[in-house]
């Protein structure tokens, strides 16, 4: 699935980018074999103290948050009537689908026996388990995203009638997608509610599920803007005029929304500290780090988005979206790794093995390669000529 197109490209196009991609894919394939023949002990720095590493902290938590653009954009356009951002739906849904797909792939590296992933549905249901909810929602939402994405693939393949049936389901799928996203984005945060003694009090809060859900909206909006800028630069030849015309309006509109949501998030974070009366921790080292996150990656992007919107400065909005995306990555890593197990001595703390980092780089590369393939082949950044002015 992954090596074929790249090797073919490598032969025809020996560009530095393609060579690096090929090297990453080969290295990733080798470590994949090691992981599934030698076990987690040989390829990771995971331990009994730190059973969750970057494959959970980055690949899963960050991956799911950054894939939120799918539900945020489709809800804005189909449910809340923001039709002028319609051209952003397909790239956002594609990113969402690929994001979740890669999350599930990453999860199969991390769990001990990936072939038992369907067990929660068939053999051991646990309705009081947080992980059961996560498993159920991710599986269902991946299906929803697949269906939401499928019209583009069906137009490409020429299955007209099936495509028309699925586009009729758009509204139902969008509503279902928002429900499932609300549930599992928040339940990923709720997983950490179970470890009050391990997560630093500044990050631990009974509001964690709400924080995770609200930050997923910020991540979704920011990723759509970030990606629109990148696509505009790298896939300009694939874009139709509507897409190009709507791009600046999209950036301005989403920047305004993201600025508001960031401001709201800032306020509930302050409420969280007040509710648990954790002010005294701010004077510690972890407190300084917490303030870096809260001021530098929440308050600052909120202000910059507002300025960018007010002055119609697309470049500023573009860089702010990158800052906000970094902020989401930082937040998820803080909760899952940096502020987690803060009570342990440094010798028992976790730092990723190079092979773990390599697999993460590998999976991101695979995701981007598939994205490139789909965007080049399928009607994502332009409307298919047979289906113009359709409502999807």
């Amino acid at each position: 699935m992954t090596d074929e197109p790249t090797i073919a490209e490598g032969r025809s196009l020996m560009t530095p980018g393609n060579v690096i991609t090929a090297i990453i894919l080969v290295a990733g394939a080798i470590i994949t074999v090691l992981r599934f023949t030698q076990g987690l002990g040989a390829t990771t720095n995971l331990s009994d103290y730190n059973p969750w590493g970057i494959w959970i902290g980055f690949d899963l938590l960050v991956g799911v948050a950054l894939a939120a653009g799918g539900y945020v954009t489709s809800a804005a356009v189909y449910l809340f009537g923001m039709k002028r951002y319609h051209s952003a739906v397909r790239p956002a849904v594609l990113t969402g689908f690929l994001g979740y797909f890669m999350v599930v792939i990453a999860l199969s590296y991390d769990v001990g026996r990936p072939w038992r992933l369907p067990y929660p549905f068939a053999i051991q249901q646990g309705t009081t388990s947080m992980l059961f909810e996560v498993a159920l929602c991710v599986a269902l939402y991946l299906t929803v995203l697949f269906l939401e994405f499928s019209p583009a693939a069906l137009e490409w393949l020429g299955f007209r009638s099936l495509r028309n049936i699925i586009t009729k389901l758009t509204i139902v799928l969008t509503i279902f997608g928002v429900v499932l996203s609300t549930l599992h984005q928040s339940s990923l945060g709720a997983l950490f509610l179970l470890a009050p003694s391990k997560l630093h009090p500044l990050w631990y809060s009974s509001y964690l599920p709400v924080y995770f859900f609200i930050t997923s909206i910020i991540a979704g909006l920011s990723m759509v803007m970030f990606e629109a800028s990148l696509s505009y630069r790298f896939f300009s030849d694939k874009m139709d005029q509507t897409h190009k015309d709507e791009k600046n309006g999209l950036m301005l509109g989403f920047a305004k929304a993201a600025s508001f949501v960031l401001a709201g998030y800032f306020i509930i974070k302050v409420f969280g500290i007040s509710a648990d009366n954790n002010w005294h921790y701010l004077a510690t080292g972890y407190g300084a780090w917490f303030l870096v996150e809260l001021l530098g990656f929440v308050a600052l992007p909120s202000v910059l988005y507002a300025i960018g919107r007010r002055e119609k400065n697309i470049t500023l909005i573009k860089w702010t979206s990158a800052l906000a995306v970094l902020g989401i990555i930082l937040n998820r890593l803080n909760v899952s790794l940096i502020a987690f197990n803060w009570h342990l001595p440094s010798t028992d703390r976790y730092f990723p093995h190079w092979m773990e980092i390599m697999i993460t780089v590998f999976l991101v590369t695979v995701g981007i390669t598939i994205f490139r393939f789909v965007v080049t082949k399928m009607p994502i950044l332009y409307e298919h000529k047979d289906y113009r002015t359709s409502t999807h």
Partner: protein
Amino acid sequence: MVACPFEIPTYEYHKALTPRVRKCTLCHPRISRGLLPGCVDSCPTEALLFGKRTDLLKIARERIGEKPDVYIDHIYGEKEMGGTSWLYLAGTSFSKIGLNENLGTKPAIEYTAGTLSAVPIIVGLWPVFLTGAYAMNKRREKIAISEQEAAVTASIEATNETAAEKLDIALKKAERLKKKEIDNAVKKALAEVQQPDDEKTE
């Protein structure tokens, strides 16, 4: 493993295909044969005791009562995180022997109970709210379209009316002009007819 505040469960990191998460079963196979757990059986000073939780708690309280100077007045595990099946007595503070004293008495499952109880509410109410938002926007769109249509028809009608009025005026004007012309022609003809008569009478 993440949730256990005592860091008890371990994982078979060396196994590639059949790793398991493991923890002490208190020698379940021995217990079912009526024996004591291995560690209790082999402890020569009876520092470890095995029995029903209620009995053990009673023994622990008796020991603390008998030797209040030796034991700290606390049974670790009686209430921590809802109570555990391992109970400890100690002559020194529990944190000194590696036990977390700030765990609270709430069972771990209660920390997520609130979030989980919100699930059915979200499943039930989100679709209602979202369908409502969709319907409101759809209706607003419909109204906007019909208003636009009405405005267009009204302006067409208005244009038509003014056009008709103008036409009417123009027609009347033309009619009047024609009438005048006819009148003039008649007058002229009459005048022409009268002239020769006058000449004749002269």
